[in-house]
């Protein structure tokens, strides 16, 4: 597909969108994995909230 004389700007805009969305997805996913692991470790050591007892 020929994007004309301003192809560089169009490609750069879509690359920026891909970077921003990927960064958000990776950040939130990594945060979730870290939190789930930490909670599992604490619970394995016997830590429980009062409401769970």
């Amino acid at each position, binding site marked *: 597909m020929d994007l004309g004389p301003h192809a560089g700007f169009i490609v750069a805009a879509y690359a*920026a969108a891909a970077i921003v969305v990927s960064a958000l997805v990776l950040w939130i996913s990594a*945060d979730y994995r870290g939190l789930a692991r930490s909670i599992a470790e*604490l619970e394995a050591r016997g830590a429980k909230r009062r409401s769970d007892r």
Partner: protein
Amino acid sequence: MTASPPALRSRSRPDNQALLSRSDLASPHRFLSLARVLVPTFAALALVLTGLGLVLGFRAPPDYQQGETVRIMYIHVPAAWISLAAYTLMAVASLGTLVWRHPLADVAAKTAAPIGAAFCLLCLVTGALWGRPMWGAYWVWDPRLTSELVLFLLYLGVIALWNAIEDAGRAGRAAAILTLVGFINVPIVKFSVEWWSSLHQGASVFRPGGPAIHPSILWPLMISAAGFTALFFALHVAAMRNEILRRRLRTLGILAAAEADVR
């Protein structure tokens, strides 16, 4: 067959209906169950709708004035709308924190801020990349551009405030006040192109008299915007789930430390 009394009907309703009641939504535990369904659903919707919108957008004819650069619109405009919608959601959630003291309100406000900031940044960057070939400049101190930059700075201010105060309750109230004060900027962004002389084009979709865009370009834009909206909700619900888990982890850590002291 006689109808059962309202109280019995309420108790015997199916679980999927129970998930949607107001009191259930106020429960962080119930929200975690709901997130397990909502995150993949919104993510799948986002993939399908954004993909379809962009494919249709690249198949649409170029604009008669802007040529191929109009393709940037399919990400720039949805990013701009989400940046405003996310801040509006934060303002409503801030009212929830200050007025109704909803247990999930500050979680919703806190987690929407970095996502809204990211979409706001994307709007500014793609706008600059669209502005250079059309206006001859990446940036001008135009009312629309400047008010969108102020919105980005407000996002950063709210995020900084959340991180500056250790106590979550105090941080939530302070951030809620800042968010509500900053909300005045949202209508300024929206109406800046009408109130002041602006290089940025005026409203083309939501305007009196209907959209000014040809349907061949309008439909891909609206589908892409729906995809961005689904993406925002997928990310927001996932981030809210993370924040609930972060608070649970903190509680567990405090209890574990207290029990270790007793022994």
